[in-house]
Each structure stands twice: as structure tokens, then as C-alpha cells.
């Protein structure tokens, strides 16, 4: 946390640097730890003092054991339909729940896209849990999803997250084991 004195120093330095000639600024860049300053600037941008309020257009992030996602609703079905291929699952157990009760069913992976198409209403507004062998996805409707990938390699999480971005029209190759990506309007902001 900045105190008054530090703020004064920082402001004074910034003012002095501003008054330097181009040649003096060039010399100055050789004297300061430019990489550290850049890193601090990025960190400050990524950790605003107050969390923004509202629902982003897109959110994908790693959790302790999987991924937490809020996708554009129109891409939810395509995202779930590609999961059996990524998770090497041949059959899916499905549990649908709403205010009137619950239903259990299962379907072969090859028929999942058709099932999703027939149950678009549940996908958009209902609560669904789908089990792909040891992995589980829950859909809370409106593109709000949580994927449990217990013991899955980090590369698989990255691959699924990248696919989620791609389906939503964004391209990014995650490098780290823990990351988040968010879109408020049309700009993809990634933290790794």
C-alpha cells in the first residue's frame, strides 16, 4: 500500500523523468530495472483495488481440480458436445434437475450432440450434471459451467480451455498450469 511520502516520491520522479531530454531518457532507461517496472505495471493492471461487478461475456479459469466457465449461451452446446472426444468417454450419464423433480438418463458419446439439441431448453435454463467416466461437468444454464477434472493432466485443462475460447471466437494458447481468461466486451484478457 502506498503511503503519502512514497506517492510524493513517485510523483516527483515521474515529473523529473518527463522533463528529461530524449537523450537523457535513453540514458535513464539504462540505469533503471525496466523489466521490474514493466512487471509491476502489469500486476497493478491485473489486480484492481475493487473487483468489477457484473457478468462478463466470457470467463474461463482453472480451479483446484478443473475449470470454471461462463460461455456465451449459444456456444454451450458445442462446448459440451466436444467433451467426450477430449475426455475419451464413450458413454455419458446425465442427471437433469428442475423445480418439478429430476431425471436420470445416459447416452452414447456419439449421440450426445443430438441429445443436447433436443434438450436445448434444459441446457439454457435448467441444471444438468453430466458424468464422463471419472470427469463431471455441471451446467447451471446460460453458459455457466463447472468442469471437474480430478487427476487430469494440466495439458488437458489447457486444451479444453483453449477450445472453449476458440468456440467463442478467441484464440489463445495457455502456457501455465493455472490461468484465467475474461472478455467483458470484445477484448480477451488473460492472466497466467
Amino acid at each position: 500500500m502506498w503511503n503519502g511520502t512514497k506517492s510524493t516520491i513517485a510523483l516527483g520522479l515521474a515529473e523529473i523523468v518527463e522533463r528529461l531530454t530524449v537523450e537523457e531518457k535513453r540514458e535513464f532507461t539504462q540505469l533503471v530495472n525496466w523489466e521490474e517496472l514493466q512487471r509491476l505495471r502489469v500486476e497493478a493492471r491485473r489486480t484492481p483495488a475493487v473487483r468489477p461487478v457484473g457478468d462478463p461475456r466470457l470467463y474461463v479459469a482453472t480451479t483446484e481440480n478443473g475449470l470454471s466457465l461462463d460461455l456465451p449461451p449459444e456456444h454451450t452446446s458445442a462446448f459440451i458436445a466436444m467433451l467426450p472426444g477430449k475426455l475419451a468417454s464413450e458413454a455419458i450419464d446425465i442427471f437433469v434437475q428442475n423445480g418439478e423433480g429430476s431425471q436420470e438418463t445416459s447416452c452414447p458419446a456419439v449421440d450426445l450432440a443430438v441429445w443436447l439439441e433436443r434438450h436445448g431448453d434444459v441446457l439454457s435454463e435448467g441444471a444438468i450434471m453430466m458424468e464422463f467416466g471419472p470427469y463431471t461437468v455441471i451446467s447451471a444454464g446460460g453458459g455457466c459451467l463447472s468442469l471437474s477434472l480430478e487427476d487430469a493432466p494440466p495439458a488437458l485443462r489447457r486444451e479444453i480451455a483453449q477450445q472453449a475460447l476458440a468456440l467463442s471466437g478467441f484464440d489463445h494458447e495457455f502456457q501455465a498450469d493455472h490461468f484465467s481468461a475474461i472478455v467483458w466486451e470484445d477484448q480477451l484478457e488473460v492472466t497466467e
Partner: protein
Amino acid sequence: MKKNVKSTVSFFRLLIEHSQRPYEPSPEHILKRMLLALCHGLSEIVESGTKNDAWEVVEGFAKECRKLEAE
């Protein structure tokens, strides 16, 4: 674990996940996407589940709480 138990615990975890996001989801999102699903799950267990189902839900919630406290 029964599907309704697992599903109910999963929606509780989803609620925790949202609390850890770098933004604050809207109250409508919390209500529609998590609380209602939790309410439906809990109501079904109270109406047609067993005492063991209810206990497993509480245990599942407590497990998630312990993870949260350990972070």
C-alpha cells in the same frame, strides 16, 4: 454417491467458485445459476431422499468448506 447428492454438492462448489472469481457476479446470476439449483437439490433430498443422502450432502458441503478454509 447418488446423482442428486453429487449434483447438489457440485452446485455448492460452483457457488464457491464464483466467490473466488476476479469479478463479482450479478445477484441475478447467483440466484438463477446457483441458488435455485441448490434449492431444487436440497428440496428433493428432503422430500424423497434418505437420511443417509442428507448426511452425504452435509458431508460434501463440509468437505468443500474445509478446502476453502485451507486456501
